[in-house]
């Protein structure tokens, strides 16, 4: 039973364009959402997060949008750069345990 789902295993975009990575969740107890970036054979690197009391959080080229009613969040990268090519994981945690639950990841390839 996957509580955090990333339905697109891969995404390919052109350098300079927008990359949109999507994530859905089923657990209503989740109230904090995170995005991580991962290169092969390395640990995930924290990118950006959002609390359920907000619907948008921005950090430079990265923006995360949260739609609580749809239990959906997305990560926008503008403009995309070849160095952004990596696997992106969506994660969520809830009050009490704070154990991050991860999706299976989306592999982003940004072509020069």
């Amino acid at each position: 039973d996957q509580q955090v789902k990333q339905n697109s295993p891969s995404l390919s975009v052109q350098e300079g364009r927008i990359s949109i990575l999507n994530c859905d969740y089923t657990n209503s107890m989740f109230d904090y959402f995170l995005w991580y970036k991962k290169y092969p054979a390395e640990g995930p690197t924290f990118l950006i997060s959002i609390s359920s009391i907000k619907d948008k959080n921005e950090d430079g080229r990265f923006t995360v949008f949260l739609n609580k009613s749809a239990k959906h969040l997305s990560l926008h990268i503008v403009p995309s750069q070849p160095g952004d090519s990596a696997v992106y994981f969506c994660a969520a945690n809830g009050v009490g345990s704070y154990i991050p639950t991860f999706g299976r990841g989306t592999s982003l390839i940004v072509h020069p």
Partner: protein
Amino acid sequence: EAGVTQSPTHLIKTRGQQATLRCSPISGHTSVYWYQQALGLGLQFLLWYDEGEERNRGNFPPRFSGRQFPNYSSELNVNALELEDSALYLCASRPDRVAFFGQGTRLTVV
């Protein structure tokens, strides 16, 4: 400030043996999480330690165990290794809602 450090980077073991993986959290972090990332899968939660106690464990058999030391470093032990235990094992620590990960230990069981 040093990040989360894990050792060894790579480990090769024979089926049936035991593996011990180590993790040092970021200074001041008392919570440590262990995750397994097998090929083609996401990060599967293994264990959570906080203040020296095991707080929660994921859906893994008892041969996956660990402990947390007084200095908050942690050890993951995998007994009776099976071929499917081959994976990247990740350790993370957190001060609040955000977990920070180490570079991982690649365990290969042959």
